[in-house]
Every structure is written in structure tokens, then in C-alpha cells.
């Protein structure tokens, strides 16, 4: 018997929405369009600069949303003491890096905007881990801290451009290149060693946190470590600290992100399915005093992983001819339906429909003549 099968996307949306609503987040339904100006001003925040634009009826340049966060932050209140906790499930439109074709991507996510404290921050990260748990048992949440990376780089005399190069090497986990880079730029021995360790570090939080402590170099990096430790403690409290790793190859644009940043992975999906972080700087850029943290789950990647492996179009393909009376046919269909089977009635089986059972009408009753199970 086949149940109505939900697609992976539909199931994920339902379970994630439930999770966020339970923590007091309210759903936010958004318009599909946004003024292009918002993206033009914050281009670096977006993953791809290709945006679908069009003119609205009064000539204003509009865009099909490539991102949800900017719109939510733009619309949030200006009093930082009033928290805005929202979740959404929306389609966004982005160009694929490889093919340069636009893609529609289903995104579910949440944003917490306001005077972010350790509790609200930990709560969001706990929800990120629980979101991954809801999608698959084999998952990993990698966390990193922008404050630690920028804190280390502050100890060097590198220009902004050189810092960007260093960051891209950290992102590639390119340990040989980072030591060459430090040597070529005459970076102090202690800082070079710290950058080298930072680039190579990967593993469960418990195993790696001591290494991070040992290379912490100033107040800024100390603060980052203690924040990470507190958050990890919170996750333990909630019983979702398994599969939480430290990985500093997760570095976002430091002009938007300032604190903790994280990404989620699921075994079998070759790219990150969840990305998020603390982005106070973006909020400030949009003229508000609040801080913010949030994440998004990309559901388009889960298509192959979740949902049913349906191999049939219908359970029963029922053939009838022009002599069949409406009543007997209806009765036959009904008896299949009552047994929970899906039925399609056809006059001719042209082979285009995949069925579990093939039935024909005989003496006013359906008779199964072929079974494919």
C-alpha cells in the first residue's frame, strides 16, 4: 500500500517549522520581490552577484529575492531591546557558479534580531544542530569564530588585501601555503605558528578546544574562545553536542559577520546544507543598533536524500472498455481506494504508466491480471 508520499522538501519544511515554532519563533511570509537597491548596496553579503531584475509598473528596478536575511533585517524594528525572532520558508533565486544559470532554491531559516546575548546565541546554534538532526542522523555542525580569526590577523601588519589572501588560504585549509605566506610577509613566529595551527585544525570540539586555547594571543581571541566554550556547554545541556566540530576554514566576509559562524553538513550531500552566523555588522550597515544571528537550510540539496524512492506512478492501473457501466466502474475504483491504493482508470494501456498491479473489468468486477511487486 502506498501512502501519499511527501517530497523531501515538504517533509523537511514541516519538521523544521515545527522545531522553530516550539522555540517561540514566528513565521514570516515574505514578498517575492525586493527593491534592487538593497542588494546593490550590500553586494558582498550575497553569495552570487547575479540577480534577476525587472521593472515594476512604475518603473522602479526590482529584484527576485536572491536572499531573505537582508529583507528581514531591513524590516525589523529599531529598538534593540525588542527581540525579533522569525523563521521563514521561501524560494530564493541565484545563479549557479558553474553553469551561470539561475536556480530556484528552497530555503528554510530563522533570524534572531535584537540585543543578542549568550542565551539567544546559544539557542540559535542549538536549533541549527537540531535542524540537522531532524534531516539526518549522520550530520555535523562545524563552528568557527570570526573574532578569533580577525584577532589573530590583527597581530600582523598585513594590509586589508593581504588579510583577504590569508583568509582565503584558511578557507582552503591550505596549510603549506599559509606557512609560505607568513614567511613571505615576515609575520612574527608566534603568530605564524598560530595561523598554521588554526588552518589545519579539525575535529570534535572537546578534542580541539585546548589547541585553540594554546594559540590564543590577545583579548579578542580569548573572548572568542570563552564564547565558544559557553555555547558548547549550552549544547551539552540540550543533549545535542555530538557531532559539533571546530573548523576555522569556515570564514565569512568580516565586513558583515563578527562573531560565531557555522555550517552544517549531511553525509551524502556534497556541499553544506546549512550556513549561518552572527552578523551584527550587516545590521549596523542598515542603520540599526541591534545585533543579529541566524541561519538558513538549503533544501534543494536534500532532494536526493529524503522522501520516498517511488518506483511506480500508481498502485493499480484499471482498464475498462466502452461497455462498462459508470456504476460498476465507480464501485471497483472505490474498493481499491478503500484499501488505500491509488487507481488510475484507462481505456488503453499504452505502457507509459508504471503500475504495481494491472486490473481489467470483468463481469462488473475488477480482476487483477498482473502484479509487479
Amino acid at each position, binding site marked *: 500500500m502506498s501512502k501519499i508520499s511527501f517530497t523531501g522538501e515538504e517533509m523537511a519544511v514541516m519538521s523544521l517549522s515545527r522545531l522553530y515554532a516550539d522555540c517561540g519563533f514566528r513565521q514570516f511570509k515574505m514578498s517575492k520581490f525586493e527593491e534592487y537597491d538593497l542588494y546593490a548596496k550590500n553586494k558582498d553579503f550575497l553569495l552570487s552577484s547575479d540577480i534577476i531584475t525587472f521593472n515594476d509598473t512604475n518603473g522602479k528596478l526590482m529584484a527576485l529575492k536572491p536572499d531573505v536575511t537582508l529583507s528581514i533585517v531591513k524590516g525589523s524594528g529599531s529598538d534593540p531591546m525588542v527581540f525579533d525572532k522569525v523563521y521563514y520558508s521561501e524560494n530564493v533565486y541565484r545563479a549557479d557558479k558553474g553553469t551561470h544559470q539561475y536556480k530556484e532554491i528552497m530555503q528554510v531559516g530563522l533570524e534572531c534580531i535584537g540585543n543578542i546575548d549568550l542565551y539567544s546565541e546559544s539557542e540559535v546554534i542549538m536549533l541549527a544542530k537540531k535542524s540537522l538532526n531532524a534531516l539526518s542522523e549522520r550530520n555535523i555542525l562545524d563552528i568557527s569564530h570570526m573574532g578569533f580569526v580577525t584577532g589573530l590577523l590583527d597581530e600582523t601588519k598585513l594590509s586589508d588585501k593581504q588579510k583577504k589572501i590569508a583568509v582565503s588560504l584558511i578557507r*582552503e*585549509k591550505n596549510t603549506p601555503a599559509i606557512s609560505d605566506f607568513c614567511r613571505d610577509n615576515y609575520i612574527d613566529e608566534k603568530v605564524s605558528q598560530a595561523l598554521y595551527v588554526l588552518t589545519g585544525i579539525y575535529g570534535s570540539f572537546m578534542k580541539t578546544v585546548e589547541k585553540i586555547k594554546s594559540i590564543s594571543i590577545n583579548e579578542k581571541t580569548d573572548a572568542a574562545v570563552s564564547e565558544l566554550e559557553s555555547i558548547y556547554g549550552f549544547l551539552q545541556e540540550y543533549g545535542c553536542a555530538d557531532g559539533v566540530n571546530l573548523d576555522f576554514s569556515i570564514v565569512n566576509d568580516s565586513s558583515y559577520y563578527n562573531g560565531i559562524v557555522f555550517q552544517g553538513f549531511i553525509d551524502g550531500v556534497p556541499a553544506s546544507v546549512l550556513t549561518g552566523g552572527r552578523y551584527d555588522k550587516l545590521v549596523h550597515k542598515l542603520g540599526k543598533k541591534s545585533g543579529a544571528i541566524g541561519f538558513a537550510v538549503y533544501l534543494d540539496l536534500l532532494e536526493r536524500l529524503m522522501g520516498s524512492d517511488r518506483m511506480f506512478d500508481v498502485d493499480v492501473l484499471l482498464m475498462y472498455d466502452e461497455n462498462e457501466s459508470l456504476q460498476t466502474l465507480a464501485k471497483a475504483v472505490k474498493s481499491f481506494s478503500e484499501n488505500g491504493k491509488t487507481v488510475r482508470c484507462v481505456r488503453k494501456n499504452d505502457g507509459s504508466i508504471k503500475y504495481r498491479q494491472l486490473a481489467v473489468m470483468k463481469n462488473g468486477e475488477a480482476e487483477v491480471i498482473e502484479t509487479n511487486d
Partner: protein
Amino acid sequence: MKQMINVALPKGRLGEKVLAIFESCGYDCPAIHETNRKLIFENVDAGVRYFWVKPSDVSIYVERGAADIGVAGKDILLEYAPDVYELYDLGIGKCRMAVAARRDFYDNTERTLRVATKFPNIAKTFYDKKGRDIDIIKLNGSIEIAPILRMSDVIVDIVETGTTLKENNLEPVETIVPISARLISNKVSYKFKNKEISRLAQSIREYCENRDN
């Protein structure tokens, strides 16, 4: 259960060298040396599965997770900027990305420079930095013919020894970047098969360091 590592190897001379390094590090695979039409070769005991792909496709297989790791030239990584980890410079397949032109070439900056290349992104980034207006002619091979037939002013291509250039009356004008083969890893595989991949990367690293010393 032991997890298998899928390795994308670049077809050709470089790939043979890479395979030799992997085999010296304990990731041997007798099946790959048999002559048959198989495409995928595995050694369950060593925990590896190899397959040969077009060198410029290695990064695609790795980025999409069909291969956990692979070996690709830095030229490919610069051109396609795949979202992968670059774990190690194997120090083989060394050459350089360079601008080359006819011996009698004079760079007339009054005109748009016509650049023939297999690597449009590398060429564009290089000339963007100089602020030079260029016209890119994307070719898929035999780049050297373009300046000879005066279809382009210069070429941007890989130069190994310079013999091909010399034989065609061309010469390197400027080096863009040195190139060598890199060990790359899919970002998600690196996390879920961390133990296996780290161990492999570490033994390759030790092998290469011993070789170089």
C-alpha cells in the same frame, strides 16, 4: 566499517606519477595495472577506489563529491575556483602560466589586446589587475597557432620547457603564476571521512618531504 576513499586521478603522464606516489604510500591497487576496459579500480584492503578522468574535470568530481579527493593542477583550480580544500602541493607537474607572443611582438597599448587562451578567467584576472582592455578568444587546444595566424596578439597558456613555443617562433613574455599539482578534497568528505583522508594526506606529505630532502 572501513570507509573507502574515492580518488579522481587525472588521465595522462601526471596521473601516472600521482598514482605511483599513492602506491608508494600504501594505497596500491593491483587492478589498475591490468589491461581491460574497466573504469573504476578498487582495493578494499587499502581502502581506496581510483578512477581516471579528464584532468580539467578532476575538480568537478571532487567538488560534487563523486570523488573524495583528487589531484588537479593549480591552473585548473585558479580557472574554475572550485569550492574544495587544497591540502597539499605535491611538487610535481611543475610548470608556469605565462603570457607568450611572437618574437617580433610589440605591445601597442593604444589597441585592445587580443588574448587567445584555454584559461579565460586566469587571463581576465591578470589583465584586470593591469587595467588593460582585452579581447579574450577562448580556444580548446593548439593555442600556439592563434598568434602565428595573427588571430591574437598574445596567448595565455601553460609553459613547461618552452620548446613548443620556440619551435613555433614564439617566446614567453611574462609569468603569471607558477603551477604544480595539488591534492584537493571535497569539503564534506573531509568531515565525514576525516580520519581516512587526514591519514592519506599525511602519508603523502611525508613521502614528498622525504623525496625533496
